[in-house]
C-alpha cells in the first residue's frame, strides 16, 4: 500500500477477496489504494496527505482558485493610472499567495492587502499632485 503497488494489490485482491467486485483497471486499483492510504492509521502522515490531495484533485474536480479584479477605466485619461493600480493589486494578490494566504478561504486577508496597496498608491498620487506649484 505504501508503494502504491497496483499490480500487487490487484493480485492480492483476487486471492483474498475473490467474491468481491475487483478493480477492472489499473486506474481503479490505484484509486482504491489512495483511498485506503487515507484511512489506514499505519500509513505515515506524508503519504496520507499525498493520497488525500490526489483524491481531492480527481474527486472534487477543483484544481484551482483564482482571483480577478475589475479596475474601472471610465476615460482614456486614466488608462495609465489604472494600469498601475491593476499591477499593484496583482502584486498584492501574488504576494499574499506566496505568503501562504489561501485565496479562497481567506479572501478577507487578500482584500486587506489589496486595499493597502490601493491606499498607498492613492496617497502617492496625492503627494505628487501636492508638489505642483501655484499658477502652473
Amino acid at each position, binding site marked *: 500500500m505504501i508503494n502504491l503497488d497496483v499490480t500487487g494489490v490487484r493480485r492480492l485482491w483476487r486471492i483474498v477477496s475473490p467474491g468481491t467486485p475487483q478493480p477492472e483497471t489499473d486506474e481503479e486499483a490505484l484509486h482504491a489504494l489512495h483511498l485506503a492510504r487515507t484511512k489506514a492509521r499505519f500509513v505515515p502522515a506524508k503519504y496520507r496527505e499525498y493520497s488525500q490531495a490526489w483524491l481531492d484533485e480527481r474527486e472534487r474536480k477543483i484544481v484551482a482558485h483564482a*482571483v480577478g*479584479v475589475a479596475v474601472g477605466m471610465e476615460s482614456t485619461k486614466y488608462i495609465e493610472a489604472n494600469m498601475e493600480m491593476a499591477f499593484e493589486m496583482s502584486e498584492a494578490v501574488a504576494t499574499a499567495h506566496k505568503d501562504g494566504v489561501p485565496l479562497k478561504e481567506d479572501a478577507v486577508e487578500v482584500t486587506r492587502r489589496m486595499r493597502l496597496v490601493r491606499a498607498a498608491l492613492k496617497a502617492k498620487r496625492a503627494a505628487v499632485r501636492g508638489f505642483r506649484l501655484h499658477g502652473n
Partner: protein
Amino acid sequence: MAIKNQNFEMYAGNDVELDITLLDEDGGPLDLTDATVRWALSSAYDPSAALVTKTSDGMSGILITDAEQGLVIVTLLRDDTEDFGGQPYVHEVAVIDSGGAETTVLTGAVTILKTALQ
C-alpha cells in the same frame, strides 16, 4: 486592467472546476448582478484565437454561484481538453456589466499535462 498570473495546471481530459473570486477595484466583492462572465482558453502562441470558451449566459459552462459576492465557477468537461497538452496555454476571464461594458478581470497561464489513462 486585470489580475495577472492566476495560473493553474490540470490533466488533459479531466473534469475541472475553476473556483474564482472576483473583486472590484476597492477590493470588495464584484457585484455580478445582471452581469455576464466569460472565460476563454487559448494557446499561448496565439492568445487571440480561443480554443475553448465558456459563458454564464445560459449557464454554458460558467455558474455565478453568488452574484453579490462575485463568486463564479467555471466548469471544464473532459472533452474540452482531451486533445490538449504539449504547449503552453493561457486563460482569461472577462465580465460584461449590465451596461454592456466588458472588462478583463484575470489572466493566467495554464499547464495541461498529458496522461496515459484517458
